[in-house]
């Protein structure tokens, strides 16, 4: 088991380095001169050129990338153009807010999605099942930022029940979490349902029934564990969607997280901030996937025994 974890951790490193390479390469092509941005549009030519030399902007791409990588590994992503604070600190300080939001969304999604998916599957063709499927379909079809706006419209503007912005206590988490979590809840519901339906059709369920096992136990003990295995993987992948979707939700709800920081930076063309944010989120995503893989190995004895 430990071998498995260590192996996966080691595989993580080249992936992350690869991510930095890709994202850096992309951002490298951003038009606009960082030196100009810092000194201002009207700065004299020689000053700009001098700053460019200092910042190493005239070096070939590979050199610049390696320099970037070296610094990144030390946690140095440069300084923000405007605030002059280290970019890394800016991103990292916003992270807890994003994590709070994403986790809330995920918990909501799982808490709703799995039970409903199970019930739907065991009552296939019933009215409940049909309603669930329709709602799940709607959930997947809604842009989450639109849902956020509609929720704000209803609960904040018209009903005045919930705050519409900022991270100011539990009440302010509700609407954003629902916004972010609905799409994922819908996906988890569908996934759980189809996985359960698939499992219930299996021969070993028939064996359990032929043994005289009560239906309840057949579902909860025999079917569930098998059905949840693929769902766990999907949950991990959905976390990536949550991290990405947080960008939009944080904008709608003025939530002080990494996503909102990114959007501001984009507007002002602060590439280091965008760069750092994307890499940071990717690293978090990779770690989450790693945890999911480990959990998966725990659940499925076929994987567990490979690494005994």
């Amino acid at each position, binding site marked *: 088991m430990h071998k498995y974890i260590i192996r996966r951790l080691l595989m993580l490193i080249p992936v992350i380095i690869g991510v930095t390479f890709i994202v850096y390469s*992309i951002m490298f092509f951003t038009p606009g001169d960082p030196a100009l941005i810092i000194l201002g549009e009207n700065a004299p030519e020689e000053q700009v050129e001098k700053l460019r030399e200092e910042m190493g902007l005239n070096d070939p791409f590979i050199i610049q990338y390696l320099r970037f990588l070296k610094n990144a590994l030390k946690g140095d992503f440069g300084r923000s153009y405007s605030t002059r604070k280290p970019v890394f600190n800016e991103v990292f300080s916003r992270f807890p807010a994003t994590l709070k939001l994403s986790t809330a969304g995920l918990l909501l999604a799982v808490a709703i999605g799995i039970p409903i998916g199970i019930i739907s599957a065991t009552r296939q063709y019933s009215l409940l099942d049909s309603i669930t499927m329709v709602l799940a379909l709607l959930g997947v079809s809604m842009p989450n*930022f639109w849902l956020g706006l509609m929720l704000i419209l209803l609960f904040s503007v018209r009903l005045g029940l919930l705050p519409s912005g900022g991270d100011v206590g539990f009440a302010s988490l509700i609407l954003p979490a629902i916004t972010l979590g609905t799409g994922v809840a819908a996906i988890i519901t569908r996934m759980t349902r189809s996985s359960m339906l698939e499992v219930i059709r299996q021969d070993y369920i028939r064996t359990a029934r032929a043994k005289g096992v009560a239906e309840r136990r057949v579902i909860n003990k025999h079917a569930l564990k098998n059905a949840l295995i693929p769902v766990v993987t999907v949950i991990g992948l959905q976390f990536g969607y949550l991290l990405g979707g947080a960008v939009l939700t944080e904008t709608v709800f003025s939530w002080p997280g990494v996503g909102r920081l990114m959007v501001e930076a*984009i507007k002002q063309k602060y590439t280091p901030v965008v760069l750092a944010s*994307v890499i940071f989120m990717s690293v978090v995503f990779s770690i989450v996937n790693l945890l999911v893989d480990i959990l998966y190995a725990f659940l499925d004895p076929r994987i567990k025994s490979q690494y005994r």
Partner: protein
Amino acid sequence: MSSSVTTEKDTNLKSQAGKKRSQWGEVWRRLKKNHMAMIGLIIMIILILLAVFANQIADYEEVAIKQNTANRLQGPSRENWLGTDNFGRDIFARIIHGGRISLMVGVVAVGIAVLIGGTLGAIAGFYGGRVDNLIMRAMDIFLAIPSILLAIAIVTALGANLFNLMLAIGISSIPGYARIVRASVLTVKDQEFIEAARAIGASDFRIITKHIIPNALAPVIVQGTLGVATAILSTAGLSFIGLGVPKPRPEWGSMLSDGRTYLWEASHITTFPGLAIVITILALNLLGDGLRDALDPRLKQ
């Protein structure tokens, strides 16, 4: 969907063609039986027609772009079916033209992703070994970045215009299709009829085009349909944060972002474009799910 190989090439081709025709016919028949999928299909056809004939329905310059401040923020009425926005522009017209953009971006982005991703996946699956490893490791790296963030990065770097939007969303979708095609190739590659085809001297190219691609077609079609939906959502999202098509071009996402400030007094600016998105995505999902069921070879009760 598989084809069989015999030594009589002519009869083989004819029976193959006959089989293929009836296979697609069978798929269509199954799709037709699925009422939800047909609803999705009809909605999509309507949307496509609206997009194609957008200019006939509501002239671009006149109605969608020209500002008419006297008429601003009106609710739905006889002249403006869905009301006007903060610049007095007719929302219905803007939604129609926005639909055109969304569908275009969706289709082109998916096209790019399928072409590049599919090719990579096919090469990886077909040649295996180091090539496979290399390509799939690269795909894994791309997949470590949440796709919206990747699209954001690309558009930020290249600038916000229609083409870059398509490119960004397309590129961020590549790994998915690479995986799908690779998986299809792997299932077919080991089957015996491939060996048989080689034994009668078929070239690699012929094997790929005649045997492997038809096999990969089904999952790609399903994923592609759903992929257009995701692309449209991503487009709206990117526009919402200001990375979409430049104003004043109407795009559903940017319309939503515009409407934010007027949520209190003129909520229709936000509600209607959103509904347009929901309906489109819904239709695509229904169609995609229906196609998945219709193309599923296991559904032989």
